[in-house]
């Protein structure tokens, strides 16, 4: 009983320490606990890009900021790599003010790997204030909504933007999103109105919110959090940040399950007495 009492008064910093170790150690040493198995959601994401004819123009929306970069960045990078490997033209933008530098980074890394030229093969249009308004305004005219790219070059001088008027010339929308504005708004404003095929990569906590869109066919694929990104990395055969993080996530999930059991054991006496605040 005294063990249970001391468990009940467990300083939560011990839990924090255990989580910290369980996350850091596998990242440093790489345990390779189990191979990643792609789900049908990740496969849908991959197939949607594979189905496109080479040279199609794709809109890549990186609507997140450094806060959720741990989850969103690996999928953003993997998507850029996949698109460039298939020689797609990428028009990138962000509706999060702190998003464009991450997009720059992703495009630069993938661009270098596949020998792609900024302006010719891809462009970062940067950030535009206005959330949904930006999306619906792009439906009228992309050059009018983004008259210049992030660096200030007028779009008419950018080869990849030639002939691009509105969503009519875009073959796929890839939304990497952390919240609002993001995947949900792209579906509501663009997919439902302009019938553009769309795939999305979102944070794990928000992924269940988009399942109905997946079921309704409004999304063709969905990557949920780091696990989704890892599945996608396996499909594009380029294991990266997310695949490395899977060991850490496996152990962290196991630890949380263990904490639930331990918590119930520790508070068993209280339960028998039938009290306590939830």
């Amino acid at each position: 009983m005294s063990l249970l009492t001391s468990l009940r008064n467990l300083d939560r910093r011990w839990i924090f320490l255990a989580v910290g170790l369980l996350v850091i150690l596998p990242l440093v040493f790489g345990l390779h606990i189990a191979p990643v198995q792609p789900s049908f959601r990740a496969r849908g994401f991959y197939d949607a890009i594979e189905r496109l004819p080479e040279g199609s123009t794709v809109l890549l929306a990186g609507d997140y900021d450094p806060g959720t970069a741990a989850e969103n960045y690996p999928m953003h990078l993997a998507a850029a790599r996949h698109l460039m490997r298939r020689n797609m033209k990428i028009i990138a933008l962000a509706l999060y003010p702190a998003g464009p530098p991450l997009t720059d980074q992703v495009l630069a890394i993938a661009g270098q790997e596949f020998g792609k030229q900024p302006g010719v093969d891809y462009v970062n249009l940067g950030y535009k204030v206005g959330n949904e308004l930006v999306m619906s305004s792009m439906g009228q005219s992309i050059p009018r909504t983004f008259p210049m790219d992030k660096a200030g070059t007028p779009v008419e001088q950018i080869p990849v933007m030639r002939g691009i008027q509105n969503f009519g010339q875009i073959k796929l929308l890839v939304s990497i999103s952390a919240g609002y504005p993001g995947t949900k708004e792209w579906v509501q404003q663009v997919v439902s109105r302009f019938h553009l095929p769309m795939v999305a990569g979102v944070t794990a906590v928000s992924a269940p919110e988009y399942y109905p869109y997946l079921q309704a066919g409004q999304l063709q694929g969905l990557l949920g959090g780091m696990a989704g990104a890892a599945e996608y990395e396996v499909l594009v055969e380029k294991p990266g940040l997310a695949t490395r993080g899977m060991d850490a996530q496996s152990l962290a999930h196991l630890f949380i399950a263990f904490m639930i059991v331990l918590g119930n054991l520790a508070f068993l006496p209280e339960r028998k007495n039938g009290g306590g605040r939830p």
Partner: protein
Amino acid sequence: MRREEGGTFAPVDTIEGGATSYIDEGAEGDVAYEYRLVAQPPEPGLDSEISAPVRARANWFDRTKFNVLVVVGFFCLLLFIYIRRSEGGVQWTFRSIPGLAAIEEAIGRATEMGKSVLYVPGVQEIDDIQTIASMILLGRVARMTAKYETDLMVPTNSPGVYTVAEEVVKSGYSDVGRSDMYRSDQVRYITSEQFAYVAAVNGLMLRTKPAANLLLGAFFAESLLLAETGHSVGAIQIAGTANVHQMPFFVVACDYTLIGEEYFAASALLSNDPRLLGSLKASDIIKIFLIVVIVLGCVLATSGQTWLGDFFATQ
């Protein structure tokens, strides 16, 4: 390809070979356009004739939204009927929501302990309906704290919310005749950056150790970060949000959680204003109507009839 009548052709879109119709989303109103199909890769023999000139004319009603109009119209009608009935003295009983009663209790507890009440209105802009509902609740909370002479802190993460919250709290204090108690640093703007805001609010919790935390609004990843810190300082916590993905975190970490429609009904229930209660009753009736429609839709779809589902499908 498209051209203005007599002009030169320019590509508008690439469509599949089997397509039999095309809607040009980019057409300007009242301009005569001519269209022509051009094969890809180019093969002049397959190109179509030039179409007769057509003009896009703007509609006064978007027919694809007819179903939305029907449901909203029906809801509004019910709203008026029940508000009138309510004003006429008809009374209804509503399921009591423990979290609501707990708000006054929590403020009372803060008063007894001589500690403050922390009100976090979520992390969305003022144009979000959840933030608007939060401002309505803030008005009621401000009146209670003014009445009990308890300190109220409202850190905001948007300057728009800050401006409105300041006005709402000030009015709350003046409504109960306690304008003298209002301090200009009670409502403050922190930052619009999500996690910097969380750091600041958590810091505020750890330093001031409020007796009650009211987390009411639109929350995202910060929900558990705020609620766990609030728990660690021993505050009684009442949360309310319509963001489904954050509800589990609040349910686990807070003492009471107002879920979805409970959150929106809270201000009406707290006010006891018959007109507001009437609007709640109307919501309940339309919900029953929707349940019937859903069940009927399922039965019809199972028996191969899709007309009901098609009617309610949004474009």
